[in-house]
């Protein structure tokens, strides 16, 4: 598979690893946050940590839209699915994520709600045309990558005059989240957390381009390398960031230049700008309330906005108090520091943001990496504690 296989060459990986090893300053430590779950996943799935020197530590950021969606929005989606005549459809990733009382869309479906998995917004539109007597609500989630396909569907619904299609919009913005992390007291003021550099998003950047990161690099004096999601892309990005750190530079570099330009996809950007506006504030699971970090439909598209069509509940139930996601997302803690990890919180029963999808820090560690810290003698864990 062209543009995939070449970027998964184990020989080359080892060569880049050797190069990184050769370049790091043995006395220094390198804290690199990959913002995107896609990078987190690649690191875990390919065991890339094993290829990096011990003093290069990867910190898994909040870049998974499934993980960061707050419980209240999942509850709201389930509420919508329970309205009579509603078919709720969404991407498969969302189905297993539990809201309040551990009810997920999958469980709501088992209770009788009409919930469908779609692979594309076009499938959702098709459902609306084939079920004219029902209300098809597309539960839209995702970063800048996933927003334009939602916009195309709404455009098409407008063109077709579809009155039984609407979007429950949960699209969020990458730059606001990065800012939030960099502005957190631990990072900015107390300096308790070292965050030396960022690997920037791959596919988000195909849309927004590399330009938005220039502000961070300068404002927060941190180097950024935009990188693809293949293992060699990640290795190379680490290599480039190590070099910038060593050099004391804080530039935006583009490892993923085969797909990302400085300005991104103008067509997609203008479509999104035409249709969506910023929410004043939006809750991110693990990060809390983040100003200007999410989108909603503009007034001319109100007819396709599920939140205007229904009086969708706006509750904000809290995560389990013991959940350490916020600290993990800022690099303050690691999954094993959470006492729920692996006892009551597992990928089958996630309690917090980081366990919700395979791209979350806790889930990736549990699923791919937990052998690393497993002592030979601790095969039987403690009795699970109640989470209520």
């Amino acid at each position, binding site marked *: *598979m*062209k*543009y*995939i296989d*070449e970027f998964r060459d184990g020989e*080359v990986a080892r*060569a*880049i690893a*050797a*190069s*990184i*090893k*050769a*370049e790091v300053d043995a006395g220094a430590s390198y804290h690199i946050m990959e913002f*995107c*779950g*896609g990078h987190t996943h690649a690191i875990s799935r390919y065991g890339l940590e094993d290829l990096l020197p011990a003093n290069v530590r990867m910190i898994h950021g909040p*870049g*998974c*839209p*499934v993980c960061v969606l707050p419980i209240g929005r999942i509850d709201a989606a389930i509420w919508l699915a329970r309205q009579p005549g509603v078919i709720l459809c969404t*991407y498969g*990733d969302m189905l297993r994520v539990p809201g309040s009382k551990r009810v997920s869309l999958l469980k709501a479906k088992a209770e009788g709600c009409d919930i469908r998995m779609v*692979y*594309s*917004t*076009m*499938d959702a539109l098709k459902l609306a045309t084939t079920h004219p007597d029902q209300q098809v609500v597309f539960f839209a*989630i*995702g*970063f800048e*990558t*996933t927003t*334009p*396909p939602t916009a*195309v569907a709404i455009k098409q619904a407008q063109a077709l005059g579809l009155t039984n299609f609407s979007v429950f919009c949960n699209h969020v913005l990458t730059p606001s989240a990065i800012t939030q992390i960099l502005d957190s007291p631990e990072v900015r003021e107390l300096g308790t957390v070292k965050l030396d550099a960022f690997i920037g*998003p*791959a*596919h*988000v950047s*195909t*849309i927004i381009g590399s330009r938005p990161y220039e502000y961070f690099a300068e404002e927060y004096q941190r180097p950024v390398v935009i990188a693809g*999601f293949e293992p*060699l892309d990640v290795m*190379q990005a680490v*290599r480039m960031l190590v070099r910038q750190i060593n050099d004391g530079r804080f530039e935006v570099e583009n*490892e*993923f*230049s*085969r*797909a*990302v330009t400085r300005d991104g*996809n103008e*067509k*997609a950007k203008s*479509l999104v700008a035409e249709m969506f506006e910023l929410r004043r504030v939006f809750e991110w699971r693990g990060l809390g309330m983040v100003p200007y970090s999410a989108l909603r439909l503009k007034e001319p598209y109100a007819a396709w906005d599920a939140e205007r069509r229904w009086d969708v509940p706006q509750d904000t139930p809290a995560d389990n108090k013991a959940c350490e996601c916020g600290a993990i997302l800022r690099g303050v803690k690691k999954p094993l520091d959470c006492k729920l990890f692996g006892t009551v919180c597992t990928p089958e029963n996630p309690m917090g943001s980081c366990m919700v*999808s395979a*791209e979350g820090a806790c889930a990736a560690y549990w699923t791919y990496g937990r052998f690393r810290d497993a002592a030979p003698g601790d095969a039987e864990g403690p009795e699970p504690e109640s989470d209520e």
Partner: protein
Amino acid sequence: MCLALPALVTELLPDDNAKVNLGGIAKTVSLALVSDVKVGDYVIVHVGYALSVIDPEEAAQTLALFQEMGELAAEPQA
């Protein structure tokens, strides 16, 4: 979630769609978000939409950089 893959455009279809191929798998995707795509191009496909066209020269340069760095690094190691 931002899963996206490079696929070869094999056929342009009506309604701004294209047939793409990935390792022997054929799929119809929308070109609504990209411009000037030709058969033979590789596009990055996400949730059924092409998001961007791969620049083969940039790709080659990146690969060359891997090699070069690899070689640079290999020397002191060997």
